[in-house]
């Protein structure tokens, strides 16, 4: 038992997993993990996930893209390469709006995707849960609750009792 990465229970429905996640949270687990083949509403919150930083990163990315895009145009049109065309103003900011807008969207979109991947720690091609039996069904039709051994609340016998009390299809050890 000591060399296991954690214990994992397998369920057939999203509601069963949701209940399991709540039970794990109630039992003091802070790093329990739940695996579902689609986005189950409320599941991350049931595990104690508070908020994602993806929106903040998106906003900052958009800001950087927009400011950068505007600065690029202003600098090149006013400072580095001023073209005097019949005395028209060099800093013709209304004409800089389209490119500024596109750059803001581009910056925000890249920031959103990068922040999502970074927040999840992806790409990560190897992970102990992939070794668990039946886990190839996690992206098909099965739902898994994993109590990892590195959680401070983890205690092998209690964890096993908790999982068994949830009446899963089965529960197993996840080898390291």
């Amino acid at each position, binding site marked *: 038992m000591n060399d296991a990465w954690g214990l994992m229970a397998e369920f057939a429905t999203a509601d069963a997993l949701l209940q399991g996640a709540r039970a794990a949270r109630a039992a003091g687990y802070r790093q329990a993990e739940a695996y579902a083949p689609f986005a189950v509403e409320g599941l991350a919150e049931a595990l104690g996930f508070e908020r994602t930083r993806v929106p903040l990163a998106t906003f900052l990315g958009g800001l950087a893209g927009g400011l950068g895009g505007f600065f690029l145009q202003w600098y090149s049109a006013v400072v580095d390469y001023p073209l005097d065309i019949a005395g028209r103003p060099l800093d013709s900011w209304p004409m800089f709006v389209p490119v500024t807008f596109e750059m803001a969207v581009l910056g925000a979109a890249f920031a959103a995707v990068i922040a999502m991947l970074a927040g999840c720690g992806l790409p990560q091609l190897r992970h102990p849960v992939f070794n668990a039996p039946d886990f190839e069904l996690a992206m*098909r039709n099965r739902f898994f609750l994993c109590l990892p051994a590195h959680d401070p609340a983890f205690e092998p016998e209690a964890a096993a009792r908790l999982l068994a009390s949830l009446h899963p299809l089965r529960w197993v050890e996840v080898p390291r």
Partner: protein
Amino acid sequence: MSAVQPPVSRETPVIGPGWGYASVSDKIADLVLTRPVRWPWLAAFFGTLAGTLVFVAATGWLLLRGIGIWGVDIPVAWGFAIANVVWWIGIGHAGTFISAILLLLRQKWRTSINRFAEAMTLFAASMAGLFPILHLGRPWFFYWIAPYPDRMGVWPQWRSPLVWDFFAIGTYILVSILFWYLGLLPDLATLRDRAHGRFKRYAFGLAALGWRGEARHWARHQSAYLLLAGLATPLVVSVHSVVSLDFSIANVPGYHSTIFPPYFVAGALFSGFAMVLTLAIPLRRAFALQDFITPTHLDHAAKVLLATGALVAYGYASEIFTAFYSGDEFEIALTLDRFTGFYAPVYWFMMACNVLAPQVLWWRWARRNTVLLFALSLAINLGMWMERVLIVVQSTSHDFLLSSWGRFLPTAWDWIFLLGSLSTFAWLFLVFIRVLPAISISEMRELVRESAHEGRA
């Protein structure tokens, strides 16, 4: 707990009855993984591949000889190539509309059509991105439009809509790829876990980036997906608006009109939804997806066609009205030339395709008749292409001075490039439907759960 059975879908407008998580996953994944290659697909694949090779060869000839091989000349310096840009980018817009705007509006009928509509967007936008480059005369210098500190010491002209175009279309293609890939990530993991061959497991495994469906990952994924949808919504409106500014900022009669941005966006959605139907109707039949792409989906798409078609018709009416109301004799002359001049047959044929033909969609039986819808979608695609040609060509053929009137007649090369780009688009789409899941699997599982719950309540 274990006595609780996994949900099974009930009969709803957007999904057939009797589908569960497993069956829905296997059905869509196996279209990619295990379905044998059959002769209709092979015939289409090799046919369009031949067309693609012709397109590549024609591009080589164009690089060698210059754009003189097309029918463009002064005064009509913009011919099919520019009309094709506008047409292709417009087709792409329906994909973004379905995946982004309908997501924000919580329209369930988008679920089964968004993936291939996004693929359509990517391929159409790629075709659109190609034509302005080919049209440059010296295409190998296309990167001069990008701002980079070059040794010539010059910068792009930021007040030119052509520069805006570069940024708009470039951003559009990149954001579409991100959006598409983000949605694809969980499905790639499904394919990785289900694939048998070593190569497929590795390929899908690498592309899935190790996605394992953890709840916190899903939460971030949902957040990023919604944000991208929110970003793509104004983006899609901006792209065709910027494309229309290529014309309306010029003072040529027929170009210089404030209605152009919304008129172009409406036309984009109109032609794009027509293309969605052109692709969806054969796809659902060939892959037996009638339970996922139901008559309701086609019905809704047809209603969007009817609505956007009305907007386009309003655009036509407004152009005519504004020309006469303005009293500008050049605008009036141009409008009369549209009705009766050299290009009048194109104009009236376009009217028949874009304004008259879609009126049949007021009737429910017409919206549910797949053969009719398919034929209509082809007519609208053709009509919208003619609209773009008419705007580009007829306006410059008939501007202010009699001495600068002229006619554009397409050469064989103009047609080869148009048909070649269509062929390349079709080829890319055929490859896509055999290599990646054409319907979002994870969202279909969600739909199974929702439909089962609705049935219970």
